[in-house]
């Protein structure tokens, strides 16, 4: 996918709404840079340390899914990130270049023997940390929203 196709539908930056966008290659070593950017951004938007950690942690879950499940660790594929800053909320979008999935079919990691699995908790954790977690119909673009303080 070209960056442009990710960028184009996003709001243009102006006084009330600003968009930050980024693309990272699909390698684990780049995830901390994505985390640091989101964390610092959240702090600049007056989230406290706890809130910024929650947003950064949710972005990390989304990015790890994009990297591992979506892009299958193909380093030539990008993880696209957008942060849309509005007066009352911060929206984080994460898109991958994979085949997508159906979030409705994801099993609850809290049920039965799944409690003993070492994976399957990413989406649950994002839902806990953010006010809203949703996917586009294809399942390649994740949208995370959190209300800004005050």
């Amino acid at each position, binding site marked *: 996918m070209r960056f442009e196709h990710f960028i184009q539908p996003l709001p243009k930056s102006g006084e009330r709404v600003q968009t930050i966008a980024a693309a990272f290659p699909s390698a684990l070593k780049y995830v*901390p840079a994505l985390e640091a950017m989101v964390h610092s951004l959240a702090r600049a938007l007056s989230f406290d340390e706890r809130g910024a950690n929650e947003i950064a942690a949710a972005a*990390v879950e989304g990015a*790890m899914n994009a990297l591992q499940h979506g892009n299958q660790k193909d380093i030539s594929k990008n993880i696209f990130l957008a942060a849309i800053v509005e007066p009352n909320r911060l929206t984080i979008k994460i898109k991958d270049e994979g085949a997508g999935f159906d979030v409705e079919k994801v099993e609850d990691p809290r049920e039965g023997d799944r409690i003993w699995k070492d994976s399957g908790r990413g989406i649950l954790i994002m839902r806990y940390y953010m006010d809203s977690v949703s996917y586009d119909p294809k399942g390649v673009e994740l949208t995370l929203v959190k209300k800004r303080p005050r």
Partner: protein
Amino acid sequence: MKLRIRQEENGWVAQVEGKVIAQESVKLGRKLEETILNAQESSPNIVVNVAQTAYLDSQGLGALVRARQSVQARGGLMALSEAPQHILRLLEITKLSQIIPAYPNDAAALKAMRAQADGGASTPTTA
């Protein structure tokens, strides 16, 4: 992430500081496995001290679950200590609190696991 693992009289203590994400979660899992597999005692107990853990990603939680299983396979136990409120909440949300108990400090955790191994009762903290 900063990880320090030390041996105490009644078991192992792994101190996990900072953010545990991506490669760091993989490393946490590997180090806990190594410690459990190489432990000389017959039923090794391990405490993971998360007092200074800013947060763990889901793979970091997964590393804890795997360690919990490895230690059990060797007849030992695993627990958290000094978990801040936000980590206790995360354990509750994921229901991992059902399989990974949390204690106020390392000594209490080691003592409780010892007592449990001896057939006694334990009183983990809840959020």
